[in-house]
C-alpha cells in the first residue's frame, strides 16, 4: 500500500510542476508568439486575416533607414565590445598580477556602472560630452557603450581568472618564458573562454541598449532600438513584427552556435 500511495503522490507532483512549467513558458513567450503571428498577417491592424509575407518584403527591400540604423548598431556593438574586452581583460589580469595600493577600491569602482540606473549614466555622459564639447554621434555612443560594457566583461574574465592557477605563470617563467611570453602563451589561452563570453555579452548589451544611447546619440547616429522606438510613435508598423521575428531567429541561432563553440573550448582546456 505504501508504495502505491508513494507512486500517486509523485505522479501528482509531476502533473503540478508540468502545469507550472507550461504557464511560465506561456507567460514568457506568448507575447513573442503574438508578434510572430501578426508578422505573417496581411492586415495592418492587430488581427490575423490572411497569410502574407509582404511585411518581410518591405523589411528587406524597402526599409533603408532601418538597415542603416542596424548597421550603426552592429558597428557600435562589435567595436565597443572588442575594445571593452581588451580593456577589461587587461584590467582583470593586471589586478590579479600586481599587488598595489587601492587594488580593492578599483574593483568596487569598476562595478559602479553595473549598479547605477541607466538614466543617471546616460545623463552624466551627456553632460560630460557637452562639457568637453564632443559632438554627439557614433563616437559618443561608442564611448558610452564601451564604458557600460567594461564591468560585465571584467566580471566574466575575473570569474575565469579565479580558477586560474597563478603558479602556471611561475612555471612558464621558470621554463624560460619572459613576462610577455607567459602572458600570451599561458594566461590568455586560459582565460580565453571568459574573454569570449564577455565579448558576446557586451555585443548583446550594446545591441539592445536604449536608455543610454538615447541620451548620447546625435543626428545621423540612430541605432536600431532608437529607430524602432521612433517608428512606434507613429503607430506599430507590422514591419517591426517582421523585424522582431528575424531578430529572435538570428539571436537564437547565434546563441546556439556560441554555446557549442564555448563548449568545445571548455572541453579542450
Amino acid at each position, binding site marked *: 500500500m505504501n508504495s502505491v500511495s508513494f507512486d500517486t503522490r509523485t505522479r501528482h507532483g509531476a502533473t503540478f510542476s508540468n502545469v507550472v512549467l507550461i504557464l511560465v513558458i506561456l507567460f514568457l513567450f506568448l507575447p513573442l508568439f503574438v508578434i510572430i503571428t501578426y508578422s505573417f498577417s496581411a492586415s495592418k491592424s492587430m488581427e490575423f486575416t490572411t497569410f502574407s509575407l509582404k511585411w518581410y518584403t518591405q523589411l528587406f527591400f524597402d526599409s533603408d533607414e532601418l538597415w542603416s540604423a542596424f548597421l550603426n548598431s552592429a558597428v557600435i556593438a562589435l567595436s565597443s565590445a572588442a575594445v571593452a574586452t581588451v580593456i577589461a581583460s587587461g584590467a582583470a589580469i593586471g589586478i590579479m598580477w600586481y599587488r598595489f595600493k587601492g587594488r580593492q577600491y578599483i574593483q568596487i569602482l569598476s562595478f559602479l556602472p553595473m549598479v547605477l540606473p541607466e538614466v543617471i549614466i546616460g545623463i552624466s555622459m551627456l553632460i560630460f560630452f557637452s562639457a568637453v564639447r564632443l559632438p554627439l554621434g557614433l563616437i559618443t555612443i561608442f564611448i558610452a557603450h564601451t564604458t557600460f560594457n567594461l564591468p560585465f566583461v571584467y566580471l566574466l574574465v575575473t570569474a575565469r581568472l579565479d580558477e586560474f*592557477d597563478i*603558479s*602556471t605563470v*611561475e*612555471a*612558464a*617563467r*621558470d*621554463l*624560460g*618564458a*619572459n613576462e610577455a*611570453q607567459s602572458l600570451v*602563451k*599561458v594566461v590568455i*589561452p*586560459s582565460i*580565453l573562454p571568459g574573454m569570449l563570453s564577455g565579448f558576446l555579452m557586451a555585443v548583446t548589451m550594446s545591441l539592445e541598449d536604449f536608455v543610454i544611447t538615447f541620451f548620447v546619440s546625435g543626428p545621423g547616429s540612430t541605432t536600431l532600438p532608437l529607430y524602432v522606438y521612433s517608428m512606434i510613435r507613429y503607430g506599430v508598423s507590422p514591419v517591426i513584427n517582421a523585424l522582431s521575428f528575424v531578430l529572435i531567429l538570428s539571436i537564437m541561432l547565434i546563441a546556439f552556435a556560441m554555446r557549442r563553440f564555448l563548449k568545445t573550448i571548455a572541453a*579542450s*582546456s
Partner: protein
Amino acid sequence: MKNVSRSYGTFKALDDVSIEIRKGEFFSLLGPSGCGKTTLLRSIAGFDTPDEGVIELDGRNIIPYPPEKRLVNTVFQSYALFPHLNVFENIAFPLRLKKEKESSVRDKVAQYLKLVQLSGHEHKKPAMLSGGQKQRVAIARALINEPSVLLLDEPLSALDAKLRQSLLVELDQIHDKIGITFIYVTHDQSEALSVSDRIAVMNEGKVLQTGTPYEIYESPATDFVARFIGETNLFPATVVSCVPFEQTHMSTLQVDALGSVIRVTDDDYLEAGTHVSFTVRPEKLKITSHPPLTVSKDINLFSGIVDEPIYSGFQSKYYVALACGTIIKVIQQHATYMDEGPAINWKDSVFVSWSAEDGYIVEVIDR
C-alpha cells in the same frame, strides 16, 4: 648560498642562511611549514628576492637574473601544468620557447616521457591525468631544459601515501640516472631521510643543522632537530661528573624528569654543573617483563607500568609510565612470530633499559 636573509615586514622568513650544496647531490630542505624552506627555494628559482646575501650557482651570483635566465627548473607542489596544452606540448613548452626544430622536439619529449614512464599519454590533457601522472609530466617538463639544478617544492604532498612512496623511489632513480643536483623541499622527515644525500633542517628562518640523514637522526644538533626527526625521548639534564671512557667520555647526568642519574657517553668533556639536553630514541630502549639478570655499570634501568601499548603489526610502541610519573616511549620490533600476541600488555609492570652508548647529549644549553 651565503648569508641569505629575507623579511616580510617584521617576520624574518630567512635569517642569515648559509648552505653549500654540492654538484649532483640530492639535497633536502626539511622543516615545518613556515620555516622558510619554500622561501629559500623560491629565492633560488628567482620568484623571490632576498634582502641580503648571495646565491651562487657554479660560482656566479644568480640573484640579479630573472627566473627565465637561471639554469634551474622547478617542480611545483600544485603541478602547475598548462591546462590548455596536452602532455606533449606541456613538456615541449621550454623547447618551443627556444624555437627548437620539430624533429629534435619530438625526440627529446619522447626521451623524457620515457624517463618518467608516461609514453603513450602524449595527447592527453592534464585534466585527464591522475595526480601522480601530472607530477610526472611536471618533472619531465622541468628536466627537458637540462638545468644544473632541479628544485622540487613538496612535489609529493598532494598524493596519497602509497603513491608518494613509489614516486619518491622513482625520483631517486631519476636522480641517479641524470646526475644533476636536486634540491628537495619537504616537511616530511621520512621522505627526506630516505632519499637525501644530505639534509638541512630549518626552523624559523634558520638552518639548525646540515648533514647526512644518519648524522641528523643519530646526532641531532638541537632539541628541535631531535624532536622533529623521528621520535625521541628528550629531557633536560645537568652534568654531575664526566670521566674518560675508552675513546670517549662517560658522563653521569642528573635527570630531574627521571628522578635519578643516568650514564651516557659523549665525545666531548663536559664540566660538572653544565646544563644539557639528553635524548634517547625509542627503538634503542629495551622493554622486558623481568629485570635483566646482570646489570652492568653502563646500563640505565628503570621500572614502570605500560600506560598505552600501540600495536602496528611490524612493531609495538609502548608509552611507559615510570615510577616518578614521567612517560617514556619505547618501540619494539616484532622480529619473531607471535602466536599469542604481544607478551607485554596494558598495565603490565615492565623494565626499560638502555646502554650508555645509545643515549646522546643534544645541546649544551649553556657553556
